């Protein structure tokens, strides 16, 4: 199982390395902070399956019950489809955990790096140079 996951990750790394040189030329992800990561557990309000990029809107409730809305940017849905993603994997109302690189401006938004879906499945996004973004400490 661990071996399988490692293989999957290796394959993803190769894919991303192959894509990085050219994909970076399209859209810049320089507006996101490479040195911090957000772990957002919340309720999906919208999963925008669109090009040039997909967007995930989620509401996150803090300890005091206050709700903060976040806008998370993904990659092209064509890249997602080639990695096996489907538009119906996420829908409004789903409880998900998103890991994202926050916006440098401090606005409530980020670059969606990975997500744990409502059914518990974890999915990585094919972000160019994904390894250059910080991940939560419990993850290598």
């Amino acid at each position, binding site marked *: 199982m661990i071996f399988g996951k490692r293989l999957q990750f290796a394959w993803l790394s190769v894919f991303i390395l192959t894509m990085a040189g050219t994909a970076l030329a399209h*859209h*810049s992800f320089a*507006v996101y902070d490479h040195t911090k990561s957000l772990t957002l557990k919340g309720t999906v309000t919208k999963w925008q399956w669109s090009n*040039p990029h997909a967007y995930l809107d989620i509401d996150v409730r803090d300890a005091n019950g206050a709700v903060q809305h976040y806008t998370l940017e993904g990659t092209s849905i064509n890249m997602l489809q080639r990695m096996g993603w489907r538009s119906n994997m996420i829908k409004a109302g789903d409880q998900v955990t998103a890991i994202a690189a926050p916006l440098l401006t401090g606005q409530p938004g980020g670059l969606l790096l990975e997500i744990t879906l409502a059914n518990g499945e974890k999915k990585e996004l094919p972000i160019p140079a994904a390894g250059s973004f910080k991940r939560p400490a419990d993850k290598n």
Partner: protein
Amino acid sequence: MTKQWFVAAILFVVAFAPMNARAQGSPTNIPDITGSWERARDASIPAQPQPPLKAQYLKDWQARQQAAREASAKGKPIAERVVMCLPDGMPGMMSGPFPMEVLQSKGQVTIIQEAYTQVRRILLDRPQKAVDDVEPGFYGHSVGHWDGGTLVVDTVGVREDVGYQNVPHSKEMHIKERISLGANGLLRDEITIEDPAVLEKPWTFTFGYRRMSDYQLLEYVCEDNREYADANGVQQIRIPPPAR
């Protein structure tokens, strides 16, 4: 008199028929390049050299590239045209990064780049138009012919604001291509930009592609991009105000 004309006609056919056949490429020489392809790197493909711009253009181009790098490092990237949902145009659409489809049909080779659903039509065995007779566009007017197994293409009429890697060009630019299929199955597009007004000498670079044997291009419509260019041309992202 009639006999003389008959002999002349025979001589004409004998003299020009082989040339015509050569220009169109004999059907057996023409490789089957129909299908889906993705960018691939290979040791046989040289690294892309810097554009040999004339001094006054080179300075501006280098300054712009430097400014773009610095802006990105500060987290304030300059909004490129793709942020406005604008396609690459020629020759950028040949650089990927998404798959492309080649379709060979009678008198035409069509290339579709999945990203932004970019389409170019290479009209075979037709004369090129004068630059002034082509309305400027993203893909220009392309004509080509098979020279043995190589598709030789000439493109004119690319808009001056449609630049590959922000390299400037004049309206007189010609994009010359030599598209061929290598023995290893790698498709090559050797591109030469000819533009004496801007370049010291022609600029040649090559893209390689690997066949994707069982891949159908996906649709791509650029819509509701939440990225935008602000008043200073900096790429921003539209964040909705807190709903509650």
